[in-house]
């Protein structure tokens, strides 16, 4: 186990979500769910983050924003898409301004379906992501991808 799994810092971005999933992500940080138990901190800065939590779907305008955040995250990192919107575009999938789930833009490692996704579900999702994070770290060490 690498220490990455003991101290995953997250960054959350609201692609075009309806707020429902956002506030549930935030709720995870608050006393009832308290993800700091797992060492999780909401850093708000891509350069410090290990996990990118995206809510909502991709649209033309935020495409670049999501990419910018993703590209500024040091490796290894994982992406968690929270909510149906992030999975597929959800109810808004057919809107003219929505191009679909986050997976169409950046590689998503864990999807958390639900509308709105429940905090417990989000915690599950992040825990799953930790496994992937660990794996990515080990792979990269073998491959020597980064320093």
């Amino acid at each position: 186990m690498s220490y990455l799994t003991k101290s995953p810092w997250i960054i959350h971005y609201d692609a075009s979500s309806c707020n429902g999933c956002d506030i549930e992500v935030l709720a995870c940080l608050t006393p009832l769910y308290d993800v700091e138990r797992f060492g999780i901190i909401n850093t708000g800065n891509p350069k410090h983050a290990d996990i990118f939590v995206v809510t909502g779907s991709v649209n033309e305008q935020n495409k670049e924003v999501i990419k910018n955040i993703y590209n500024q995250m040091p490796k290894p990192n994982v992406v968690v898409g929270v909510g149906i919107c992030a999975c597929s575009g959800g109810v808004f999938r057919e809107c003219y301004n929505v191009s679909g789930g986050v997976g169409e833009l950046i590689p998503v490692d864990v999807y958390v379906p639900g509308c709105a996704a429940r905090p417990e579900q989000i915690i599950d999702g992040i825990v799953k992501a930790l496994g992937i994070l660990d794996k990515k770290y080990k792979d990269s060490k073998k491959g020597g991808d980064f320093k």
Partner: protein
Amino acid sequence: MSRRIVVPFGPQHPVLPEPIHLDLVLEDEHVIEAIPSIGYVHRGLEKLVEKRDFKDFVYIAERICGICSFIHSVGYCQGIENIMDIEVPKRAQYLRTIWSEYSRLHSHLLWLGLFADSMGFENLFMNSWRIREKILDAMEETTGGRVIQGSCKVGGVRRDISDSKLKDMVKDLDILSSDIEDLCHVFFDDDTVIHRTKGVGVISKEAAYSLGAVGPTARGSGVSTDIRKTGYVAYADLDFSPVVETGGDCYARCAVRARELLQSVDIIKQAVDAVPSGDIDVKVKGNPDGEYFSRVEQPRGECLHYIKANGKKNILRERVRTPTTANIPALVKMLGGCEMADVPVIVLSIDPCIGCAER
């Protein structure tokens, strides 16, 4: 050489739950210019009416926003019901009122937390949200959803609340109100909070009115406007008056919301006392034909659903004018000449909800 600092504030910024951006031009930390811009979460859902049956559109209406989700569905349904002349059963109207006020409680607590966070008061944030979870529990138990309630439909509501549950809810609220009072005390009295809110982002009564500010933003400046006073759903039967503060600053806007928490508790109690028995919905036949401006009071202020239909299954136009949209001009005015540290506080003080502002 100028001494300007230009900071791209947002769209991704930890204090902004939703993306907006501001181009901050600072001198030291004094804001010289701050032009906000939105547009990151526009989905274009109003256009979905062309695709969806007017009855099914309510599911989309409630996903305009995950915070006052319920009130959006009320606004939409109410519009259709008015066009079609549907008489919604009284019990349904009362339940709508109760859920609306629960939404307000949840939304205001959420906001108080975010607001506290915006000035770096983490504990206050945590404690606000701790209390809010109790509200969400009640919501989930009665509607099946924590944030997207999905219990309003054209012609009434989809779930009933048993009378005993209603009583329990009131009991829980009583316990909660003492916690809420403790919390409000901090917002009202704490020196460091006052340091961050008093005199920050002042907007005068006249300015607030002429800029078309709504909700707590307007009421914080002394404009007594509260769409609940038009008496939609069951508000006509209940006794309350708009909460008004006169400071016009962030402190006043915060105070309005804090006091509204207690007001909502009171309204819920009145409604529970008065809720009649009977059906919770009526059957809806036919299609709407006509137009209507449906106005409801969301936690953030007046929200307007304009519906125009021509007797088809799909309505012609649904327009949502959300409170945040109406408050943006006031926000632009507030930001002029503040300090950089005030920017998050001021932005949050209108309780911006970009999701619904852009739809």
